[in-house]
């Protein structure tokens, strides 16, 4: 549980730091640090929580280490053992202060116009936390600012793929997509992206 709180806290820090991250229109970047309880949950949405319960692990398959029986000749009981839903993510060492520091440097460099230096720092942060959707989002924003719209689109999609349940970030990604599509003259896709962003900003109905 403490890990979740930590993550929420770090997410909010990241949000503050990525001040020029694209925010859904009408939402303001929070500048004060709220207590973790007030943060929007970064955890899976309730329906997903229901779908992925914590389960005990399967007994280890009784196989030899070195050589295998040919496929099809194995114990049928093992074949038919129920498939388990994934357990909650194992606790991983968090490197958040490192990532926050790199993100801060990247922000300063982007502000000074050193876009590629900023990108290089974001990549360093991604080496440390490759599944952190905020970092992919930030890289997308950078590419948008540089006019590399296709790269911005791919990066926003990558961020969204990792951002399950984080409605605020997903809305930001859709906003990023809307701008990139608009710049490319793909108006229908831009409109759809904008609609998605708006839906995510609406209070969650459960």
């Amino acid at each position, binding site marked *: 549980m403490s890990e979740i709180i930590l993550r929420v806290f770090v997410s909010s820090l990241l949000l503050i730091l990525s001040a020029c991250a694209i925010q859904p229109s009408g939402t303001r970047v929070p500048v004060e640090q709220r207590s973790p309880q007030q943060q929007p949950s970064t955890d*899976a949405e309730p329906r*997903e929580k229901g*779908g*992925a*319960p914590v*389960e005990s*692990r*399967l007994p*280890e*398959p009784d*196989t*030899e*280490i*070195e050589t*295998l029986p*040919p*496929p*099809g*000749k194995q114990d049928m009981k*093992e*074949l038919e*053992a*129920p*498939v*388990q*839903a*994934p357990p909650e*993510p194992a606790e991983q*060492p*968090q*490197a*958040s*202060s*490192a990532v*926050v*520091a*790199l993100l801060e440097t990247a922000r300063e460099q982007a502000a000074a116009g050193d876009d*590629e*230096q900023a*990108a*290089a*720092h974001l*990549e*360093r942060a*991604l*080496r*440390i936390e*490759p*599944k952190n959707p905020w970092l992919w989002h930030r890289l997308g924003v950078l590419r948008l600012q540089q006019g590399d719209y296709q*790269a911005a689109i*791919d990066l926003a*999609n*990558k961020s*969204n*793929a*990792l*951002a*399950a*349940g984080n409605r605020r970030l*997903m809305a930001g990604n859709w906003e990023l997509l809307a701008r990139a599509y608009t710049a490319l003259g793909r108006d229908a896709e831009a409109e759809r992206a904008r609609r998605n962003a708006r839906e995510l900003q609406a209070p969650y109905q459960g």
Partner: protein
Amino acid sequence: MAKRRRKRKSSRPRSTRLGFWLALLVAAVAAAAVYVLWLDREVRSAFEGKRWALPATVYARPLELYAGRSLRHDDLVRELEALGYRRSDGVDQAGEYAVSDSRLSVHTRRFRYWDGTEPARHIQVRFDNRGITAIMAVTTGEAVPVLRLGPRIIGKIYPEHHEDRILIRYDNAPQQLINALIAVEDRDFYQHYGVDPLAIARAAWVNLLAGRIRQGGSTLTQQLVKNFYLTRDRTLWRKINEAIMALLLESHYSKQEILEAYLNEVYLGQQGNNAIHGFGLAAEFYFRRPLTELSTEQLALLVGLVRGASYYNPRRHPQRALERRNLVLRLMADQGYLEPDAAEQLISRPLGISDVPGWTSDRYPTFVDLVRRQLHRDYDSDDLQNAGLRIFTTLDPVAQHTVQKSLDQRLQRLEQQYSNTEELQGAVILASVDTGEIIALTGQRGGSFGFNRALDARRPIGSLVKPAVYLTALARPEQYSVITPIADMPVSLPQPDGDSWMPENYDREFHGEVPLYQALAQSYNLATVNLGLELGVARVADTLEAMLPGLSLRHYPSLLLGSVDLTPLQVTQMYQTIAAGGFRTPLKSIVAVLDSDGEPLRRYPLSVDQVAPTRASYLMTFLLTQVVERGTARSAAARLPDLMPLAGKTGTTDELRDSWFAGFGSDRIGVVWIGRDDNQPTELTGASGALQVWTDIMAVIKPRPLTLTPPDGVRWQKVINGKRTDEDCERASSFPFIVPHLPEEYEPCHGSNAVERLFQRIF
């Protein structure tokens, strides 16, 4: 006759004779002047146009240090040792470290990266049994959030004449180095004009007494001229040229400029084919430390080598080298550069030569080969070999060591286990899932570099192709889910030549209707072919081509069983795309290139390209976890219980010619190929061969387990007999589905008896 003529000459008027001699003199002077002018031009153009031939230096990844990193005390010590850091009690200068129980005190070196300069810092690193807990600046006590150690050198790309050097500037040269050099080689350096008649006379006297050449009278300037412009022959004419050019050089350039050139030019040793030039590289070569970190007696040794780097080679002739070094130290004391007491103390010290040279070439030949090929696309050979480029790569030397060792040892064991298996070869690639960075790569068993199989061995991939079939299916969630029944039934397709193509399962049996996830987990050929034919071979080919740009496949049904030749590198790209949720990140080995002054030249930025839908890719990853958990790769689950879940796929080709495994965790992907260069059968399946190497590697690398957090729009559901059931149903399996395509029908898990339900819930 002759007599008369002479008489006639002598009878000429005096003035005419004088005129003749004068004319001759003028002509001689004019000729000499022209010659000197010509030499002058030569000297200047050569000195000013001198472009030091600097090999390109290839660096490994720098080690990032931050609190929370699972890097142990011993790991960091090993890295520091590899970087030539010196263990000491008090950490006074850059390049030193001190050890206590759970702490390390390190004075890091300054290093210039693409994205800025990492300053030299004195830090303290604290550990617990999991890794780094804190990093603090020693002077201020403030937390340091993240820093990089300098990267190891893993290779060089040499000029054609095989010169190697690290350039140093006069301002950065240690004063005692210059003092020692002047004391030994040219004590009047700052006074003379390029030649030193006194020194020549002194040398002549010494040599006369000794009866042989014992001492040279050449100034540093003359020595430089000799190395710079002249051939090695010892003629008087060359000596005269050398003297004139030395005088000219001195007239144009300052003592500092001449000395700087000397420091970089002088020959100080040999490493294989490559000549060690200059004190900068010599410091790394003999002591594995930067020149600026050397102590006085170490500098004295290097100066001693000027007179005969091979004769005084400290690794081969330590006694000679020691005597030579001590002579240098005594001369320094004689001339007031050292206090006599201090000199005596230094003389008592050992040589302090490192066991191995600063870096050994060809430790990572196949990886450097990959880097070199990439560079040749972006730079011409001249720049690559001479311009001193600094190339920053993604290689992790620790992982590389594990990969090579695992491959070598496992192949040896396999050859012992299987009687008819010999001359096995292999290739392994290890990469980061989301950034596509290649962290280790080998294309051969240990030994000398020949054929780079990781890049060049094109082999049929067998069942490794199957995920392309299943991914194509899962991208149509309205039609296929992970539990859709697939017919594992005989297939017979007429061929153009009149024959029929009748693929078989590995066990030569038919398994009837099997759920989709099991068809892949057990790698059933017939189910896969039926599924692929249902989808259309062209669509499967499209899926594969999207992951591997540039690939152009023929649409034969045999493609469905992997009759396509790919290199291990291509297979890694294919599985990287799946592992990263459908986002292809081009695999890369180079991060950035700097020029010899440390200025950024080029960066190879991270890019992603979505080529498969996110949700279908998530289901695909789930299918591949089932291969490891209950399918053909389950020996990995048994050997790596703490790392589960991991995902992967075995591949075996006709008559067991190729043994493949591709698998990944959350952050690392590894691909292994085993086979023979003559393409003969190996007796190995993907599971008994390549998977074993992969498991050996992962047991050490310890990838993060997959988290399998579903992306938006994917939901896990308990299922029994293909129908939804209660979430607390223990005998049911959970499967991920793409919303809203969940099973529609419901089957109760428990009997209608409420007591029985309660009973089942409690137990």
